[in-house]
């Protein structure tokens, strides 16, 4: 059988039986997802690559703890999430409190139209700058949801928050991002 056709669980069983080379297939399957998330979290590709290496090493060493009661993708996201949070706690500065700033948000009716009229490079730059100020948890949730298309249910399993809590956080974060983008558009 072609090794690339196996499911995550089958690879995990092979690794547990001592076939360390089977891990490369899991790496190929998840490296892009984990790396793009980590890049968003740390904002630096070199640092993100090192962190992604550490995350996969951690995953390899913790495979025995994977109880197969959730999807492997959920579990690997959770490992990455914990790893990034502990890393970011040490390194991130200039983080906003959404609770304080959310009250200042005003609704702008032609926001989407203005956004479309802006240059693509500007939009990319603005979003990067805005995301860079988000607290780690909100950044993780919003990136999983909007970039990786992970469902609210799965995000709640990854972050161990309730689904309603995830929805509230998504709503508040989206509102805050919108207000920050508006500020940048009017500059």
């Amino acid at each position, binding site marked *: 059988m072609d090794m690339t056709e196996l499911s995550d669980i089958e690879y995990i069983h092979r690794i547990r039986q001592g076939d360390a080379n089977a891990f490369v297939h899991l790496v190929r399957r998840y490296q892009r997802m984990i790396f*793009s998330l980590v890049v968003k979290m740390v904002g630096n*590709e070199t640092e993100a*690559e090192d962190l992604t290496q550490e995350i*996969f*090493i951690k995953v*390899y060493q913790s495979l025995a703890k994977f109880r197969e009661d959730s999807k492997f993708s959920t579990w690997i996201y959770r490992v990455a999430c914990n790893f990034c949070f502990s890393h970011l706690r040490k390194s991130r500065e200039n983080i906003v409190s959404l609770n304080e700033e959310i009250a200042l948000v005003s609704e702008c009716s032609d926001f989407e139209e203005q956004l479309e009229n802006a240059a693509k490079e500007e*939009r990319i730059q603005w*979003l990067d700058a805005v995301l860079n100020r988000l607290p780690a948890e909100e950044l993780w949730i919003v990136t999983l949801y909007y970039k990786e298309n992970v469902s609210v249910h799965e995000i709640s399993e990854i972050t161990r928050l309730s689904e309603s809590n995830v929805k509230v956080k998504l709503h508040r974060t989206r509102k805050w991002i919108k207000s920050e983008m508006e500020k940048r558009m009017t500059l």
Partner: protein
Amino acid sequence: MKNIENDKWLKELFSEQPEANLSSRFESKLMQRIAVLEVEEAENQKARTRKMELVFGILGSAISVIGIVFAFAFFGWYKPLASSLHELANQFSTMRANMSVVVPIAAIFMLLVADLFARKYLSNK
């Protein structure tokens, strides 16, 4: 509860973000590190096994000694052993008593034989 709606603009913003690419050496570097980890783990496993063998060996010996002492004390096995030892001691003392006669006779006999051989050797010279 707040629902998630009117978020098409944010989805589009995220989709516009350029994809970051991992370096070509990422995979090989990772697998090399995992191979090193495997070797280290195997060595650690061996060391753990040796340690366990040593611990269990010492523990087994200690348990055996304790078991034998306990059996001797509890079942009274020391009695036949004691009598056996007593018999053995008697045999040794009998042997020693016999040897006190045999040894001087043997010594005199050997001296005579040595004297005989010495005389014959000197006469040939």
